[in-house]
């Protein structure tokens, strides 16, 4: 389990408008590129001082590559990061205000507390 890295992916995509569009249009390619080029960059220090050990599990990589937010919730992604990025990705495809947010909730309706642990 690499919940921290899942959260880092959501966080770094969400804060960059170009990456939001790239992840929307090419999720698998964006995940592959990000894991190879960005996953090990420590955000507050120079890129050459990158980490050496951060990788996704196969299940995590596949959930990101398929925009599977139900599975990402179940893998313990931080709920706020997950919701915020997926609103940016898909809210525009719905006519009614908050329709995507309500569908997001409905697709998780088989869950009750306790939810998956988001601790990193």
């Amino acid at each position, binding site marked *: 389990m690499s919940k*921290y890295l899942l*959260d*880092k992916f959501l*966080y770094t995509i*969400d*804060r960059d*408008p170009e990456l939001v569009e790239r992840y929307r249009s090419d999720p698998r390619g964006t995940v592959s590129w990000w894991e190879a080029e960005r996953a090990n960059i*420590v*955000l*507050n220090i120079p890129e050459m001082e990158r980490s050496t050990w951060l990788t996704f599990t196969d299940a995590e990589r596949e959930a990101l590559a398929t925009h599977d937010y139900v599975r990402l*919730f179940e893998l313990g992604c*931080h*709920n*706020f*990061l*997950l*919701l*915020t990025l997926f*609103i*940016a990705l898909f809210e525009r495809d719905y006519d009614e205000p*908050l329709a995507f*947010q*309500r569908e*997001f*909730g*409905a697709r*998780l*309706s*088989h*869950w*009750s*507390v*306790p*939810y998956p642990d*988001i*601790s*990193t």
Partner: protein
Amino acid sequence: MATIAAVIASTHHPFYYRASTSTGADRPPFADEWVAKIERFRETLTKAEPDVLVMVGSDHFHQLWLDNMPQFLIGKAPCYDGNFYNEEREFGLPRMFLRGHEELSAYLLRAGIDSGFDLAFSNELRIDHSITCPLITLRPQADLPIVPIYTNIFAPPLPQPWRFVELGKTIRRLVEAWPSDQRVAIIGTGHLSLELGGPRQFGPHGPDPEFDRKAVEWISSADLDGALAEVSLDSLWLPGNATHGFMDFMLMMGVAGASVQADYVDSLDLFHTMEAYFTWYPKGKSR
């Protein structure tokens, strides 16, 4: 010594700005009532005639990140930019600019550390909607210097609820002892029951109206014993998966003082969440 001109606790709903400024078909049906309530709430700060605002909120993974996460942090900078790209994108929030009050920041850091809180600090802090939303509702002219205080209600492991209360009591004591003739308003925002990124999100009411009813009671009477008896880090998952923001209300109850009835209480039952507004005047209602 400084005067605490007002203690204010509020929810911070990022949709208020867009709802209150929209017109015609875009204006939601609840906007007029919401604006009227906010304008009455704003008056409680205006009449306190503050010189400086201590603003308690929580960064929502904007500047603070999991590689280096502080529990309690005070900004100490001459200026603060406000709001982020993803808050413009999702909520339509404007970019903002606030002056800081470095003298009060420095004092609270030194005295807070000496009081047993090993506070983190930031000399370059961009504030997010937990602080800009109460500025938009309570002081939209954004003309007063601020001291931002961030708490971690977001990234486990979190401090215990009693620790938020103790920090609130400490902030109250330290501001009252600040050698200054300034009038300080202490404003903090949090949540009642709230679900984000889970199955109970965006319902017709907050996810747990019974919790909200009890929470408004606890806050309006600063019933710290009642709140601390029922609230724990584990229990706060039950009303909604983002309800740990209630601990910022508990901090503000600590600022207000145990069992001190709020001078102003209002609430608004919206879709998705209950809004709630509280003001205390520690020195009475007028100068």
